[in-house]
């Protein structure tokens, strides 16, 4: 175990996988000589030469080259700086990467990893801060993960790179400098498709992922002061969703609160509610709730983002309302 910042864990995972498998290649805007717009690929070009490349600003082609390289036997990791820019690469992600294995009857695999950032929380404004994970989680053929800790940033990314299927790894700039214990083991992997119970509790299940997880945990601690025991589930994988873990918890607590940085409609939160009511309806003691931003673009100043994204107090209040602790 070493203590690393979130981005250093990303960097370590990339370095280890480049060293571990020479089919791994890495490319994207400013990832090589500059070492990444936010430092995630620092030092890798120096170490791995032409396997790490700077690209032009061409998200469609970057992703398309990733698809082709993967189909031809490489293990490409491409970076799309912000998820908002995935809007320029959706054909390659959705129509190509996600479908080629199916459309080739299993003959062509696409072990492509796409790294990106969702929901910046750094005052980057409406076009650099969207949480678009639900789009990707809705596409058969893709895997989608969203690490919330430094350890997961390493373990999920490594699993993504080793997966024979295309995986989108949604990192969080809000967590970029958060420190955490990270196993030094070069074969440390977090399995795709498995959620983590970050805190146990019997009164309420709170489901979160990415940057919302630390806020959910802080809220759980605060709620405990009010006598409400919250179980916090970090989804980690958004596709496939770990129905088992979510359902087991909801069956136990009878109450569900999803906390997310994405707006409500057709979100991962909507999906978690759908799954919970479909398979744990009889266990529900109150209506599941999705706590989320208003249906509006993300504003840039902190004074407003703090009112836009659900904060710890908002989560505590929702937890109290759901459990009737204040009623």
């Amino acid at each position: 175990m070493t203590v690393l910042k979130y981005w250093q864990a990303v960097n370590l995972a990339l370095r280890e996988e480049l060293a571990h498998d020479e089919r791994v290649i890495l490319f994207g805007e400013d990832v090589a000589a500059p070492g990444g717009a936010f430092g995630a690929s620092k030092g890798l070009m120096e170490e791995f030469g032409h396997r790490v490349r700077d690209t032009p600003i061409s998200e469609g082609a970057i992703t398309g080259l990733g698809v082709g390289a993967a189909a031809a036997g490489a293990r490409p990791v491409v970076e799309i700086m912000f998820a908002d820019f995935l809007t320029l690469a959706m054909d390659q992600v959705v129509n190509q990467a996600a479908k080629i294995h199916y459309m080739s009857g299993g003959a062509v695999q696409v072990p492509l990893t796409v790294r990106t950032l969702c929901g910046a929380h750094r005052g980057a404004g409406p076009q650099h801060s969207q949480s678009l994970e639900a789009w990707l989680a809705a596409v058969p053929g893709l895997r989608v993960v969203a690490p919330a800790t430094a350890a997961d940033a390493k373990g999920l990314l490594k699993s993504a790179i080793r997966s024979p299927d295309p995986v989108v790894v949604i990192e969080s700039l809000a967590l970029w400098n958060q420190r955490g214990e990270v196993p030094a083991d070069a074969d440390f992997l977090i399995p795709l498709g498995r959620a983590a119970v970050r805190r146990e509790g019997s009164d309420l299940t709170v489901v979160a992922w990415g940057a919302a997880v630390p806020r959910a945990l802080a809220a759980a601690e605060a709620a405990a002061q009010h006598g409400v025991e919250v179980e916090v589930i970090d989804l980690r994988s958004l596709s496939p969703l770990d129905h088992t873990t979510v359902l087991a918890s909801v069956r136990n607590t009878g109450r569900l609160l999803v906390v997310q940085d994405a707006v409500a409609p057709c979100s991962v939160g909507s999906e978690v509610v759908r799954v919970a009511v479909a398979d744990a309806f009889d266990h529900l003691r109150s209506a599941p709730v999705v706590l989320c931003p208003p249906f509006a673009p993300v504003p840039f100043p902190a004074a407003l983002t703090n009112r836009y994204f659900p904060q710890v107090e908002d989560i505590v209040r929702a937890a109290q309302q759901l459990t009737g602790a204040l009623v």
Partner: protein
Amino acid sequence: MSVTQIPDIDQAFGLLRVMHRIRAFEQCATRLMAQGVLEGFLHVSIGQEAVAAGVCSVLERNDLMTTSHRGHGHCIAKGARIPAMMAELFGRSGGYCGGRSGSMHIADAEVGILGANAIVGAGIPIAAGGALASQVRGTGQVAVCFFGDGAVAEGVFHETLNISALWSLPVVFVCENNQYAEMTPSQVHLATTVVAEYARPYGLPSVTVDGNDVLAVRAAAEEAVHRARGGLGPSLVECLTYRWHGHFEGDSQRYRDKAEVAEWMLKDPIEHLAAWILSRDHRLQERIALTRLEAVEEVEQAVAWASALPVPGPEALLADVYAEDLLSEPELAVPTTGTGGGRG
């Protein structure tokens, strides 16, 4: 730098055979579509066979290839199995995708076909990615992508030219310029209709050849492939040609003159090569005829085989969605109901 030589008679027959196999396959498919035996969208390249045959004749088996919605010819020329292609068109379980994807989605990893594609232009960066994998891994493979004049207007074409030039990727861009994108003539959709021009800003060697002259196509492709394989980077070959059929089978073709079509039918690439062969040796008439018959025969056998295959059952719906099964936890699967629709 050219390595081109005039092919010998056997090589010419090799090209002729490929063109006849493509023609026979597509003529048969259009007939079956008209009869209502096939369903879905069918885009044929009848009249354009020289491009596929010429380019693929200079490729190795493990060289990589992508193509478009109009890709039967390229796949056949690159070595795809005609029976498995026919089965795919039939929607039967012996098809390349188990009969689930249809005419626009032939892929065959064994002969380097990364896939045909129903999205205009999408195969272009994918081929360049294949070239990147080859370059990084040092496999010596060249990647070729076939696309139409319509794809030139898609941004990803230009993006890919740029990256390929910057990285000196071993890729050959082959534009099959048949002068129409669906019902729209190229003057309406391209500011400059000479596609070779679009490669110039990137410093790519590019050339326009008669796409109905298989030997001219082959010569240009040979040079481009040689350059790519030698580490000298990408190039573009524009093949000027024409499709005899509509954009898809069923297209009413009100957007063009019958006379224009008739004129181009006189430039049949197969007749053109046959004439070339006969000019070398007029006694080869019979062998030429036989070449055609064999192709027709092969396709008929493929139809017989394919039409006898079973229709895929509902279990096919979820097959191959992922390469790896994470569904150790049963709820991760969206169960299907007995007869059909899933139940999320």
